[in-house]
């Protein structure tokens, strides 16, 4: 996978992260939104570990 492809993936990861963070802001404290968004963010972190962290080293 080229650096260009990894960058594209990293951009999508950032988009998901931003969307999950916005969900938390918009939730009005509804736990069903907050906690599920939190879980999405934990999964996003795994994507960052696997791709975003290494993006510029490839």
């Amino acid at each position: 996978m080229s650096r260009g492809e990894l960058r594209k993936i990293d951009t999508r990861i950032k988009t998901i992260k931003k969307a999950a963070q916005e969900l938390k802001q918009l939730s009005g404290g509804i736990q069903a939104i907050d906690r599920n968004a939190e879980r999405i963010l934990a999964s996003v972190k795994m994507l960052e570990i696997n791709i975003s962290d290494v993006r510029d080293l490839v």
Partner: protein
Amino acid sequence: MKTSSNQKDQYWNPVVETLPPRKMRELQLKKFKRILEWAYERSKFHRKLYQEAGLEPGDIKSYEDVAKVPKVEKAMMRDIQRKDPFPYGDALCVPLEEVTEFRQTSGTTGTPVYQPDTWQDWEWWAEAWAYLLYAQGYRKTDKVFLPFGYNIFVAFWAGHYAAEKIGCEVIPGGVLDTEARILKIQELKANAMMATPTYVLGMADTAKKKLGIDPARDLTIRKITCAGEPGASIPSTKQRMEEVWGAKVYDHVGATEIGAWGFECTAQPGGLHINEALFLAQLEDIETGEIIEAPGRKGKIVITALDRIAQPCIRFDSKDVAEWSKDPCPCGRTFRIIQGGVVGRADDITKIKGVLIAPSAIEEVVHSIKGLSNEFEVIVTKKGDLDNITLKIEFLPEEEKNQEAILIQLKDQLRLKTNLGYNIEVHPYNSLPRYEVKAKRFKDLRKHA
């Protein structure tokens, strides 16, 4: 870097698993600085430790600088436990309400250490296990049986979640007894399993003797992932397990405080890969503390979990003894290999009659002798100035007529492989203790004499 479709199928993440070593060191340094800064800013324990050493996170500029960071010993973690914030103490780096998981160490070497994790940490645990299970050939078509007590010990919990993450069908063996577990494996045609070596062998015994089931012939388990004991990296123990189950047996090494840091791949290169994308492991000379980079020289593993945030594990003195392999792995992973897996623990390797010995060396001999049961016990005592080693063994019932020849072979091999003479005690079959999880077969009573 090009990633072929073959690579995509072979690796959980080909991007990091095939990263050239120089790039890997860059990645590890970047992540090490990040976790060090995280802990320094949030944990009183870590900040005090580093300030007393006159070190700040900004002082770490190169990979070599990592060794300047003070190590953390298990005893230090014990000391801070049960203090504020209760029950973890001040190494905690997140608000208590963000902790979602409690686990504790098994207490094999002393008072158990409590380990908090956030949900992100728990995802990370499963991620580390996903790397290792995928490397051992687990795929979404597999039906995985987990015959362990789901409780406060981390054991195979993350293996369960990782197998789910890969897409396997996971069957939790939980509180079923051994016979019920075997029958459930048979009924559901499970094809993979995770257990300690002691339990893998014990299950096979139970299957044969109590149920008349031959695991290799009558069950469908074809890969087994072991953890908790070194057995799957001890050639004779591995061979016993593979023969009796008709399965490939793979080793894995990890710890509650660290995570799942090492694994054997399907190429079985005679050692374990370290997951260098998630962990930074250094080998340190046991006497001098010098960092060992060259193959062929044993040291203890000092390790950092690069992404674990609730209670960071930074330069943790694992006491696990290993040596670097000189050969690359045919699997193509660039993750470094420790030859022969973890060969002992710095606090287990002991001097008997002036000879340095690891308990695993005795296990290797006992399990290499056909006709002996899987169970044995080693007891070291002192009479005056003299050390004595007693080795308790059992013959398999069908081998009793060959006892004399087997004993000669055992004594010869022990002398050859361990350079020591033993008092050998023969015990009736099935009379030595049986273990379900971590076996305690080596008892050094000299310290209590």
